[in-house]
């Protein structure tokens, strides 16, 4: 069995800061991580491989330094890393990204065997679109299973998979055929730490690095900025509210209890109906 897992190297958004004066992003020194949502998909792929045999190939598109995230995936237990990197990919939106990834997965299929399952993260923490997974599925003609909370059954002979999919107000139990694309829900498994052998292997492993041409992409106008139907025209910091928050005077009210009373008075003065609403709510109405 062959499984491909698409991952993305992202800035650790918990550590991004906006400059208080210039309102610009302070990118310097922000560490990069594997998109956290991708790890649940990687873990699920490794579990399937451990149970049914085969190989897990991790794929990413990004700048050369994105190979770090592939090596990290190898230390967790993946068998092979493929980096898709080319200046033609710069500025890709989700449609152009799904085009490039789909081409690379085709090429991976030719070299290492067609994948039975492609995994992707539910979404990234930097783009937050959740569009690339479905885009890759559509371009490869794969059946699409998103927001998967558990794989209930997997049958290689029958080429079938049964999963639980989170939907509005409940869980759908869906059965479909391989090959398919799966995105896992966060918290659906616990990501392993990786074994020492894997760390040693990862340190020595060659990361396969492909340009657009290497991946079999002939028409580079479908990549990057040129292949992106969406155009970002403006990037801006949100305007502050006309008035800043009215601050409670903590010099006049030094004790915590006094401060609390002053705050509550200010809230009720701001919104007259609030006191009545809160009384009803607190009384359980």
């Amino acid at each position, binding site marked *: 069995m062959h499984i491909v897992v698409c991952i993305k190297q992202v800035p650790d958004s918990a550590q991004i800061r906006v400059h208080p004066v210039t309102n610009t992003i302070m990118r310097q020194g922000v560490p990069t991580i594997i998109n956290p949502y991708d790890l649940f998909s990687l873990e699920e792929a490794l579990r399937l491989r451990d149970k049914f045999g085969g190989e897990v190939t991790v794929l990413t598109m990004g700048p050369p330094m994105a190979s770090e995230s592939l090596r990290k995936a190898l230390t967790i237990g993946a068998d092979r890393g493929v980096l898709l990197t080319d200046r033609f990919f710069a500025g890709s939106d989700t449609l152009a990204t799904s085009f490039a990834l789909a081409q690379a997965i085709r090429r991976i299929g030719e070299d290492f065997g067609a994948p039975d399952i492609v995994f992707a993260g539910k979404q990234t923490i930097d783009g937050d679109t959740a569009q690339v997974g479905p885009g890759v599925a559509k371009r490869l003609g794969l059946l699409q299973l998103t927001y998967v909370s558990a794989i209930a059954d997997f049958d290689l002979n029958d080429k079938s998979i049964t999963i639980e999919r989170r939907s509005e107000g409940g869980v759908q139990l869906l059965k479909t055929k391989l090959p398919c694309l799966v995105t896992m829900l966060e918290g659906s498994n616990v990501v392993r730490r990786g074994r020492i052998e894997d760390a040693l292997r990862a340190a020595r492993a060659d990361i396969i690095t492909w340009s657009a041409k290497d991946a079999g992409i002939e028409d580079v106008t479908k990549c990057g*900025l040129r292949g*992106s139907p*969406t155009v970002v025209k403006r990037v801006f910091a949100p305007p502050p509210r006309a008035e800043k928050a009215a601050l409670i005077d903590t010099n006049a009210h030094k004790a*915590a209890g006094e401060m609390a009373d002053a705050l509550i008075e200010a809230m009720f003065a701001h919104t007259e109906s609030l006191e009545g609403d809160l009384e009803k709510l*607190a009384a359980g109405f």
Partner: protein
Amino acid sequence: MSEQKPAAGGGRASMKKELPEKFRDYRHVWVFIEMERGVVHPVSFELLGEGRKLADRLGVELAGVVLGAPGEEVQHAAKESFAYGADLVYMVEHPTLADYRNEPYSKALTDLVNTHKPEILLLGATTLGRDLAGSVATTLLTGLTADCTELNVDDDKSLAATRPTFGGSLLCTIYTLNYRPQMATVRPRVMRMPERVEGREGRIVSFAPDLDEANIITKILRFLPDRDSNKVNLAFADVVVAGGMGLQNAENFQLVRNLAATLGAEYGCSRPLVQKGWVTSDRQIGQTGKTIRPKLYIAAGISGAIQHRVGVEGADLIVAINTDKNAPIFDFAHIGIVTDAMRFLPALTEAFRKRLSPHSKDRLAG
């Protein structure tokens, strides 16, 4: 690389001024009316309210798109769409559309778009909407902007879709200039619910989809509804108390729960607390969590990054508690107090308890 850089100027295909000939007859604004087991998702009505404004600015019609099994439920969805502002409803009825599956839904919606050619197509950014929108936009090879917080029409009639970017620290406005339809998703509760006009009427345009259960590979074996007791009603709560990294450890989050319990409120948190595993993800408030519109929102130890701000800005009254007087939360809170949330929350809980207790006053609540 799906994160985009601002366009650097000319030279790229998508920056051409003229819309290609084949897209010139794409007109009208569509809203996908999302239904799960016969119930229309409220986000669809919120989108009809937004779509109405866009259609009026463009001088075109607003259409709801209803997909489902033939029966009363789709008729009801159409009637509700009219009540919330649709001029017409495209009705796509087929037994294979009884419950959501990507294959028949994406095929039916793609075929409908290719037949009736809308210029704008809006969907809710729900699990269903995101699953469907990504497939349809890829098949149509058009632009799709996810999780918009603001939609507008420019003077040249193009859709300006604004969303947070860079992990939610800045906003960006995105256009799909040379492709149609211009697609966008919006999260539930981000847009205001429009007024429902009882008895408002519209016309129904039926569309017969080319679907056959025999050709659909994915089968629904079962649906397991959530136990109601597990449901977090954060998005619709009147009062919400939330905590952030200022609480410093998982144990201190109990202070937020205590205040919420005293107020009869729902509790939530900012994203880092979920990433640290202190609080479950169904409690996350912000761009990637829940959007809330309560009467009162109390944020304790939350700095107020944009990704959090866009999730709470609809609150009538925002109260911020933070030790850092320069924290961005004070830029959009109405009332603030510069103090340590860990020490202040117990005092606030106690003060509210005294104040709101029915026995502390002569008059009873209500």
